C-alpha cells in the first residue's frame, strides 16, 4: 500500500472541503472494499478522509412514509436495527447476508451505494424500493444514480449522506451466492409500495438494473407464477468463469420467483 495523509473530520462540510480541495483524496467509510484495493495498489489517493467521526451520518429515522438510513450505518446495524426490521424487514434480512460478520461489523450502506459494485446487494434494493440517494448537495433518485460498473452520478467531492427508502407494503430478496467468494451471482429484490412495483437485479449485469417486464407482470398479478414466465434476455449480462450470460439470465427468473415467495 502506498502511504497517504489521513483526515478525520467531524462534519459533512469539513469532509466535503477536504475532498474538494484535494481531488486525489478519497473518502473512507468501513474500508471493506477500499483497503483491499489500496493493498493491490489499484488506487493511489493522496489522502483518506475518514467519515466515521461524523455523528449525523449514523442516524436512522422515519421521515413521513420513508425510512432514512445514514450513510455510515453499518451492515450489521441495518440487519439488527429495530426500526429497519419493522419498516423494511427484507432490507434487514438482505443486510444480514452481506459478506461475513466481520465485514458487516465495518462495512456501511453508504460505502456500498457509492462504490456500486455490480454484485453489491444494496443497489438492487434501492432500485426496487424507489429509494433516493441523499448527498451533501442534492437528492438523486436511485434510477438516475447507478450509471454503470463502479460508476455513479456522484460528482468529484460529492458525499452520500443518507439513503431514503419509501416504506413498501411488501418486499423480498433472493440471491445465488458464488460458492467461493459468496458474492451475488445474481440477486433480485422485489417490492410493492407507494411508487408501484419495483424489481431490482444485481450480480447479473455490469450494473444493477430494473426488470421492467417483471414489474409489469407483478403489478398485474403479484405472485410467483407471474414472474415465472418472464425471461430475461442474456444480452449485455456478465459472462465469466463462474457462469455464462445465459446462465445468469435464467437465474434472474429463478431468483425473482424466490424473492416474490420471500415477500409473501
Amino acid at each position, binding site marked *: 500500500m502506498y502511504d497517504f495523509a*489521513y483526515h*478525520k473530520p467531524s462534519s459533512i462540510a469539513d469532509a466535503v472541503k477536504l475532498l474538494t480541495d484535494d481531488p486525489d483524496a478519497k473518502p473512507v467509510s468501513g*474500508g471493506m472494499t477500499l483497503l483491499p484495493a489500496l493493498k493491490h495498489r489499484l488506487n493511489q489517493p493522496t489522502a483518506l478522509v475518514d467519515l466515521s467521526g461524523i455523528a449525523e451520518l449514523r442516524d436512522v429515522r422515519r421521515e413521513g412514509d420513508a425510512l432514512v438510513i445514514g450513510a455510515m450505518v453499518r451492515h450489521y446495524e441495518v440487519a439488527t436495527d429495530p426500526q429497519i426490521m419493522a419498516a423494511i424487514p427484507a432490507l434487514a434480512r438482505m443486510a444480514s447476508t452481506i459478506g461475513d*460478520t466481520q465485514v458487516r461489523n465495518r462495512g456501511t450502506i453508504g460505502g456500498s451505494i457509492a462504490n456500486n459494485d455490480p454484485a453489491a446487494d444494496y443497489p438492487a434494493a434501492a432500485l426496487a424500493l424507489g429509494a433516493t440517494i441523499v448527498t451533501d448537495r442534492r437528492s438523486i433518485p436511485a434510477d438516475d444514480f447507478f450509471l454503470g460498473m463502479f460508476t455513479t452520478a456522484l460528482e468529484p467531492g460529492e458525499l452520500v449522506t443518507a439513503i431514503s427508502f419509501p416504506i413498501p407494503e411488501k418486499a423480498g430478496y433472493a440471491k445465488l451466492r458464488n460458492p467461493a467468494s459468496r458474492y451475488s451471482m445474481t440477486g433480485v429484490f422485489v417490492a410493492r409500495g407507494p411508487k408501484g412495483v419495483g424489481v431490482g437485479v444485481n450480480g447479473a449485469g455490469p450494473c444493477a438494473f430494473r426488470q421492467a417486464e417483471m414489474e409489469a407482470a407483478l403489478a398485474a398479478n403479484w405472485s410467483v407464477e407471474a414472474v415465472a414466465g418472464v425471461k430475461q434476455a442474456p444480452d449485455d449480462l456478465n459472462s465469466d468463469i463462474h457462469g455464462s450470460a445465459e446462465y445468469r439470465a435464467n437465474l434472474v427468473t429463478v431468483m425473482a420467483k424466490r424473492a416474490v415467495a420471500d415477500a409473501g
Partner: protein
Amino acid sequence: MPNVTLTVNGKTHAVEVEGRTLLVEVLREKLRLTGTHVGCDTSQCGACVVHIGGDSVKSCTILAVQADGAEVTTIEGLAAADGTLHPMQEAFREHHALQCGFCTPGMVMSAIDLVKKHPDGLSEQEIREGLEGNICRCTGYHNIVKAIAAAADVMQGRATEVARAAE
C-alpha cells in the same frame, strides 16, 4: 507521522504509525502481540480477527489510524490474570477444535462475538454460518462447531463448566 492511542487488552499504548499502517501490524510488530495472525492479508481467512469495542473485526483490513482511541481485545487478552482460560479457549482445548492452530486465535475471537450476538443461544446451523469469515484448513470445522456450542452454554449460563468431549 500520525500518533494513535490504542487500549489493547486494558493497557493504553501511544504509538507512531504511518497512515497506511494496518492495525494488525501495530499489534504484532510494535506491541509484540503475535497471537493475532496474518493468513491471507485479504480479509478472507479471519486469522487476524480481534475485537474493537466488542465487535469482531479483521485487523488486516483496518488502518491503525481508524482504530485511534479504540478498545481492542486480542487473543492474549482473554484469559484471566491467573491463567484461567476463557470458556471459549477452554472449549477449543477440550473439544480438540484445532490441529495446526494457525486459525485458532481468529476462530476464538469470532466465536466469542458470535455467541454475544445470539444472547438466546444458537443452533449448529447458526454457528456454521457465523464462521463464514474464518477459514480452517485442518479440522473440517466439526470440532470447532462443537466447541463453540459448549462454550456458549457456559457463557450464557446454561452450564457451569465446559461439557466434556465424547470419548
